[in-house]
């Protein structure tokens, strides 16, 4: 998701930096990279000795001018300790980016599902939060938990200005699955179902909270194949429906960047 999105924004001519905060280091596969050594991974940003030289690697530089990434991976395990022992704790990522500015129009943090501590570090460094969610009960419950977490943590960390929720986007939607249709309140063709109360749907609940809901992104084999090929879906299958489904988010991001 983060990879496809970062590429889509970069392809419109913006400078984009993708920072992977996930120990699994899956960016390596999605972008066809080799494994990063700890000194060349996101882990370095959490270390006191960091000198401001970001270990950026260019992605698909033959196609886009300015898309860079910092890889996560196993070394981040150590960073967890560094966060807990640092005096400024969750703020150190934000502090680092403030001290050594990163030349980018958009910085995308790719966080793992577990919110502690990387999610908090990212939250404290963010201006906006975008939440992809698979429309299933477990994930929906997790999402509700995330929102509650978000409101509590903003107050707890006294984040000023507050990171704003850009919106949520249902991803990996399969219209053939009844659960997905019921949770989103749509039929097999993707049209809205009238008999379902909006409050009984995920978008209804979210919009009820005043949070924007982006059009859903359907599960596509292209995503799976693209990741196998180490390409964003936009390059793997240009113009396909899957790649176009990112457009509303890209438009919104561009709007935010331009405004600021």
């Amino acid at each position, binding site marked *: 998701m983060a990879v496809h999105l970062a590429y889509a924004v970069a392809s419109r001519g913006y400078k984009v930096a993708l920072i992977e905060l996930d120990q699994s280091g899956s960016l390596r596969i999605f972008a066809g990279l080799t494994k990063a050594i700890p000194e060349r991974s996101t882990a370095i940003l959490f270390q006191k000795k960091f000198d401001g030289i970001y270990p950026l690697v260019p992605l698909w530089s033959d196609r886009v001018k300015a898309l860079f990434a910092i890889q996560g991976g196993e070394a981040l395990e150590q960073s967890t300790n560094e966060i807990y022992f640092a005096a400024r704790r969750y703020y150190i990522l934000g502090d680092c980016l403030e001290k050594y500015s990163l030349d980018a129009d958009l910085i995308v943090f790719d966080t793992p599902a577990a919110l502690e501590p990387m999610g908090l570090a990212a939250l404290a460094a963010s201006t906006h939060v975008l939440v992809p969610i698979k429309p299933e*009960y477990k994930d*929906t419950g997790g999402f509700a938990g995330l*929102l509650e977490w978000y*409101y509590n943590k903003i107050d707890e960390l006294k984040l000023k200005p507050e990171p704003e929720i850009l919106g949520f986007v249902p991803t990996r939607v399969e219209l053939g699955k009844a659960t997905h249709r019921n*949770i989103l309140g749509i039929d097999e063709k993707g049209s809205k179902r009238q008999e379902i109360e909006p409050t009984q749907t995920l978008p209804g*609940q979210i919009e*009820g909270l005043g949070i924007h809901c982006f059009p859903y992104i359907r599960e596509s084999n292209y995503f799976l194949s693209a990741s196998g090929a180490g390409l964003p879906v936009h390059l793997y299958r240009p113009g396909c429906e899957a790649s176009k489904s990112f457009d509303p988010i890209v438009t919104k991001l561009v709007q935010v960047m331009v405004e600021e």
Partner: protein
Amino acid sequence: MAAVKVGMGQLFGDVGQAQQLHKLRAQLEQLQAENERLKTGVLDERTKATLEQQVEELTAQLAQAGGEHEIAVALIESDPNQPRTAIADPIVRERAVSLQRHGQKTPIVLFPPQMNGRYALFDGEIRWRAAQSIGWKTLRAVIVPNTSDEVEKFEGQIVTGIHSQKLHDLDLANALLHLIGMQHSHLRERRWEIPKILNTAFRRLQRQGKHLQLAQIRSAPEEEQQQWIETVGFKDAQEQAVFATLLRLQLNPITINNVVFPLLNLAPDLKQAINAEGLDASKARELNRLSSQQLDVGESEAMSIRTQATQQVLKQKHSLNQVKELVEQLIEKYSPKSHSRDSAIVKFTKTVRQLDVQMIANLQDLEELEKVLQEKLAQIEAWRNQQGT
């Protein structure tokens, strides 16, 4: 709780509140900061006026959203999550003087009432304490609107209460009336009749021998419960509604009918003892026998006897048996004639009391005994309900 379906409202139950809280906190924080600036006097008159207007707007907004209410000071409780636990007495005294002189300027902010009917404070701890210290009976308050699905949330609270066994039977009884009223609008205005509706329906089941199915249907899947409710022969939608709610919560209607709902008929002083001092339900039921009718005395004297007995039970930590004996003695003392005892019953009661259940080796015997006792209990309860005791 397999019988309770996952609803979107349930999943998002707490998010709305978290969001609301966040917004309010932010607004309050902003106002506090402005207030500080006000105190330091760097603001010109115009800014001050704007600020005051903002304060009024926020309160008005809250007042409009939740409506402004006069809430009894006694019904308000401190927010356990209130980060500020120590508030110095002088501040409270200062505020008390201000309340007496100028009255209450802005409403305090409360959460909607909990199951016990009490309101937790969101904002206004000092005003609340000050009001207590000067003997005010009520405070003006706005209720922070709860955007979550109230019914599901409430049901969730009951389920949690039942599971954690923290819910007193009397609270459960009140909560059930409330929940059934919420879930079935035709019963909302008539929820005090729910115990009677349940009792009538239950008696009918019993006459038809169908009440024994309840133990099993209680833990059946929801669809099966629904089917049972539709086909077992209830008289009307009200009876169906009451059973539907109880079974969905996996509660046994027999217990609710015989043990829980009767608590609603307890004397007010006993309810008070339950709420304030945690008197056991079973002991309260015994003490409730100390009625003016049974004692053959006037209402106020009966209440005084009952209150004394209750205090004795609480202070000396009487066992249930001791309570029973005490009640017998008191009835004997005030109204000996109404109490000529049937020696056969006395003997039987003694036998039952001495029976060691663990010594019954044959499971069939035990089940038979249980069945007979349950039926007898139900008959006794029915008789009592008729008598109105």
